[in-house]
């Protein structure tokens, strides 16, 4: 597979994808970079001027920045933890013989197809609403004071909603991986005297490592930029309790229309995202090689 001809062809065939993505990344990015050095408010046209690093200074001086950074990590970490653990358990469950397996599977994967906006709306208004929601109804049935989800545990609420959407994805991939585990390996472990727990920790979990890494990678990509769920439910609040980086930049760019500041934020986010990407992708990349 290594003639000069095929290599040249390969380069040619890769170029559209690479060039397009490069353009998609570089053109807006360079504009953003340019704006980030400008005092530029959309609402005050004609008043742009160069401010040097001012925007960056303001961006970092904003106490909300660090809160947003932490929130982003908590959100990503929380959802990953729930979906990975839940997904693994659920996959183990679905791997067993079950009456009506096909239907259960359909039920479980359904949330994956739901638009984030819709799911946030439904959860906010029909499940977690402190007065009209089903949860508050259930709480009252049990004689408990209903929890004010978005007021008292805003981040947990968002994590739950997002986890609900991503749990099927994790479950599906882990289930597929589980089913690819060689039956003979399980039998061998059985002959070697491994009980169910040993079987899980010594044989199944290591086998799932790769699938779990992939789930982590894909989800992280999407979770870093969670927006609709926050926008619809808490609008980043109360306070900045649920403001993640994306939402912080949103506030700056689309509520304040401070393009300069938002661009600085965008650049910072790009750098952060790339740091995450670097770490994550390196780890995953290594894991995917084998």
């Amino acid at each position, binding site marked *: 597979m290594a003639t000069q001809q095929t290599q040249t062809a390969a380069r040619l065939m890769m170029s559209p994808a690479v060039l397009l993505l490069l353009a998609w990344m570089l053109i807006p990015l360079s504009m953003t970079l340019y704006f980030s050095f400008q005092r530029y408010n959309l609402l005050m046209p004609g008043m742009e001027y160069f401010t040097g690093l001012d925007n960056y200074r303001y961006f970092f001086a904003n106490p909300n920045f660090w809160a947003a950074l932490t929130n982003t990590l908590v959100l990503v970490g929380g959802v990953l933890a729930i979906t990975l653990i839940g997904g693994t358990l659920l996959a183990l469950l679905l791997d067993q013989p079950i009456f009506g397996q096909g239907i259960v599977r359909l039920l479980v994967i359904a949330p994956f197809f739901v638009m984030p906006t819709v799911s946030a709306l439904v959860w906010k208004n029909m499940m977690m609403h402190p007065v009209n929601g089903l949860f508050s109804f259930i709480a009252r049935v049990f004689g408990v004071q209903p929890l004010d989800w978005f007021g008292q545990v805003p981040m947990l609420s968002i994590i739950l909603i997002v986890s609900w959407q991503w749990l099927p994805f994790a479950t599906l991939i882990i289930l597929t991986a589980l089913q690819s585990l060689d039956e003979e390996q399980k039998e*061998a472990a059985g002959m070697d005297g*491994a*009980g169910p727990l040993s079987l899980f920790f*010594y*044989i199944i979990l290591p086998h799932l490592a790769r699938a779990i890494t992939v789930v982590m990678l894909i989800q992280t990509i999407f979770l870093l930029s969670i927006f609709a769920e926050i926008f619809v439910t808490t609008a980043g609040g109360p306070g900045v309790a649920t403001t993640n980086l994306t939402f912080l930049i949103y506030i700056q760019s689309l509520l304040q229309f401070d393009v300069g500041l938002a661009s600085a934020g965008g650049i910072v986010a790009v750098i952060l995202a790339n740091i995450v990407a670097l770490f994550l992708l390196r780890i995953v990349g290594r894991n995917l090689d084998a």
Partner: protein
Amino acid sequence: MGSISLQNVSKNFGGVTVIPDISLEIEDGQFVVFVGPSGCGKSTLLRLIAGLEDVSGGVIQIDGQDMTRTAPAQRKLSMVFQSYALYPHMSVRGNIAFPLKMEGADKETIDKAVNNAASILNLTDYLDRKPRQLSGGQRQRVAIGRAIVRQPKAFLFDEPLSNLDAALRVNMRLEISELHKKLKTTMVYVTHDQVEAMTMADKIVVLNAGNIEQYGTPLELYTKPANRFVAGFIGSPRMNFIEGDEAKKMGAHTVGVRPEHLSPSKTEGLWAGTVGVAEHLGSDTFLYVHVDDVGQITVRASGDVAFHSGETVYMTPMDGRLYKFDAQGQAI
């Protein structure tokens, strides 16, 4: 310490009977090989002994104890799978140590046992590698290592060599034989390769469609096959079978003669035929001869015999090397 006894064991999979009714005694320390055509139930029988499948009927005793309903882990048998079923994420050491770890042995015991097993199997240098970094033969040895590390009552092998290339197969065959001599543990070995069966077994079980056709030493099977099936199955190239008039003349429904028991001659003999293909291997020559009214007959001659395609050849079976079978295929 490792006799295995099957009494009227049967197995069916959702209605399909795979093993109708088998009784078999395997003595302690013996090397018993199961052979038979594909799908005859060899693996199933082995898995029943291992406890990986439940019997549909009958009793399995190991060491005199009824183990019919015991879980695999408690039967104290070790199994080597065709795919080896090594744990890919564990090092060789981890793989070999696994059964001991599951028993809850302490670290020292484990280390000693693993090192011992590794030295028996020449794996000492590879203890820290992962399975994927090993060659086929080495993997095979790791699988055996995992089996011998805890001194089981018996070893079960399911076609352990079928994934190896020819040269390695010969080596591993010898190694397993030597291991058996050293450990003197009962071994039950499934294969469909007759060379393996013939060279390794103390006793061979020939299975066909879930039934035992014959149970005996390799030479017994070669020299005194109980029926036509066994005769055809044991020996390579396959025994030539002659039916019809030619066989009737000799007072049998079918007459069998092995290729190596036919003397070819250019001048005279019992049957005359035309050479189709002559394969010269150097050491041997295989002649594929077409005989009118009889069909194709394979002759194995020495390497320096000079027959060529199209020539006429006369063949005579050697004395006492003719097998006769009745219409039911039973040896007469």
